[in-house]
């Protein structure tokens, strides 16, 4: 083995993961890692990935980005320079994926973000791809669903000002809602900081504006606090959430308060069929809980990279050349059947795929409510 300071082993394919193992959303990193480990074991147990008639073992390097933007850039640089990976999966959250995407693009390393929905992640970055739909698509999904489901005319928004994802989606939602229902129908548009635990002042303001529902495009850990505090203040109306709610940990943290709420996401685990069901069953058996969307998306994102390596036809021993050929092959993938649904890629590297809206039922399961396709 020539592994060590450079190059990586002759017969191994080294892929980096830039994921949040600590920080605000550790469950997201855990789910990503578990899904990747499962995929790696699958392929390595068959002798490796076959490229051009030869089998290559997979080696995954997991780097913790602490759910921070600056750490995500450092993690990306470490994976690129020190570990010499051929491609990077992650970061997941747009807050980290937007800056890390810039780093990967500048260093000419292909990157696929499984979960990031902010347009800036891939915009004008030929080396950056993603496996999730975009917020400009997700925003209208929430607008249309809430209008129909709650019969809502007015809405309120509470979002995290220091999170690109939350802020971006909140703004898209506001403009889409006002386009549909007229000016000033978003009656309250309030923000908070990432480390905040008390939202009572913002919620008091929202409740005083008497909206028909509250849109909360926040991470699951904040959602649990926000919904509880809204109920403490006497709010009995509905909430609508976004895909950042879809963590396996949401129900552990939120409990009864979240039951009956809706959010848009990438897939619904309850009632899944085909390959998706196989994945969910295996993951549940192995790790003891139902995989959330980020696990499924990591699976798809990693398989996209492997597909690109195979499509290229041969594996270059030079890391730079291999990165280039992966990027070219990724750009060449026009359609891909993932477990989160089939996706077509546009010129920007963004998939065009369906979103689902799920309802949290009385057992705390995420049950399919509606599917929305572009």
């Amino acid at each position, binding site marked *: 083995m020539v592994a060590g300071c450079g190059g990586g082993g002759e017969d191994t394919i080294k892929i980096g993961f830039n994921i949040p193992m*600590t920080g605000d959303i550790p469950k997201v990193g855990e789910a990503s890692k578990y899904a990747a480990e499962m995929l790696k074991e699958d392929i390595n147990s068959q002798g490796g990935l076959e490229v051009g008639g030869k089998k290559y073992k997979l080696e995954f390097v997991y780097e913790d980005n602490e759910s921070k933007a600056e750490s995500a850039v450092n993690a990306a640089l470490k994976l690129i320079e020190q570990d010499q990976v051929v491609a990077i999966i992650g970061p997941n959250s747009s807050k980290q994926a937007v800056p890390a995407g810039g780093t990967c693009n500048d260093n000419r390393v292909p990157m696929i973000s499984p979960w990031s929905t902010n347009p800036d992640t891939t915009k004008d970055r030929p080396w950056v791809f993603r496996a999730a739909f975009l917020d400009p698509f997700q925003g209208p999904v929430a607008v249309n669903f809430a209008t129909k489901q709650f019969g809502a005319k007015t809405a309120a928004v509470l979002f995290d*000002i220091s999170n690109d994802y939350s802020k971006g989606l909140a703004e898209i939602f506001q403009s889409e809602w006002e386009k549909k229902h007229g000016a000033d129908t978003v009656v309250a548009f309030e923000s908070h900081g990432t480390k905040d635990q008390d939202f009572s*002042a913002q919620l008091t303001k929202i409740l005083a504006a008497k909206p028909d529902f509250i849109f909360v495009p926040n991470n699951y850990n904040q959602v649990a606090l926000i919904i509880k505090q809204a109920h403490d203040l006497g709010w009995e109306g509905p909430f609508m959430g976004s895909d950042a709610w879809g963590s396996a940990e949401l129900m552990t943290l939120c409990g009864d308060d979240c039951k009956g709420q809706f959010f848009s996401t990438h897939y619904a685990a309850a009632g899944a069929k085909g390959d998706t069901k196989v994945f969910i069953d295996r993951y549940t058996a192995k790790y003891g809980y139902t995989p959330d969307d980020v696990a499924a998306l990591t699976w798809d994102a990693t398989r996209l990279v492997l597909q690109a390596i195979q499509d290229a036809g041969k594996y270059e021993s030079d890391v730079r050349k291999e990165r280039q050929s992966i990027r070219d092959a990724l750009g060449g993938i026009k359609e891909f059947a993932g477990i989160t649904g089939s996706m077509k890629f546009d010129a920007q590297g963004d998939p065009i795929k369906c979103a689902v809206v799920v309802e949290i039922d009385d057992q705390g399961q995420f049950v399919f409510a509606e599917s929305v396709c572009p």
Partner: protein
Amino acid sequence: MEALFQNIINALQWGSFYALIALGYTLVYGVLLLINFAHGDIFMVGAYIAFGVSVFVLGVQGLDLPNWAVLACGVPLTMILTAGVGVTLERIAYRPLRRKGAHRLYVVITALMCGLILENGNLALLGASRKKFPELMEKTVWSLGDVSVTNLKVLVIFAAFAVFGILNFIVTRTRIGMAMRAISYDKFAIPLMGIPVDTIIVFTFVLGSGFAGLAGMLFAMSYPILEPYMGALIGWKAFIAAVVGGIGDIRGAFVGGFLLGFIEILVVAFFPSTLRDLIAFSILLVILWMKPTGLFGIARHQKI
């Protein structure tokens, strides 16, 4: 108008936490002239101890205690154990430095370091996943028109006032309180009067950390999601509150805590919420600008 009343209640609850933590800063500073920057993290440890106590110690073991009993036993147990953590820090980190006559600056930096050790120790020990604090109180929401209060909020506010009353009594009316005040005047002459300085200092840490444990438990009940870094930001802010109130003064910490709570909540009520910290801390800056020793502080002239 109703929104204003609601916000006053919100601010009373939020200010209670600042006040409870600020009291811990001020006690230690009052006696040792030491800013115990680890205090915010002792508060975090308190919340985790409360979690451990209510879930594992009282929850399992086949006792099947009702929630009120878990709460009733959990509060003193949490306070005692958290006090133990505070005293341990004093024993292994601050006392050796004090014995060697290290400058206060180094002790403050040691305190910062201890805070980081507590945070990362917790992270290593319990992992990054958040913990969900169990509901120990049957939640009741009382509504008066559009104003809603929960029984938990009332309890938190009551606890803050009670703790202030107790501490104020101890510091101003008891012999041990007199000894605490005396040490801050002259820590070299005081041992000559037959006052056991170390015992008094340990007692100060017991008080400060014990009430940080109480604050941690109440906080965990109000905001039931625990994470290893939860103490850092609220600890800083409570420290600022203590400074604005006049650090070293019990009334100052109490008033400063509520002042910060009120400013933060009311800024959100009347301005865009984005500007909250900017406006809140500008106001505090103006207060310090006019009164650099804080609202209740007295200028201390000393030889260095």
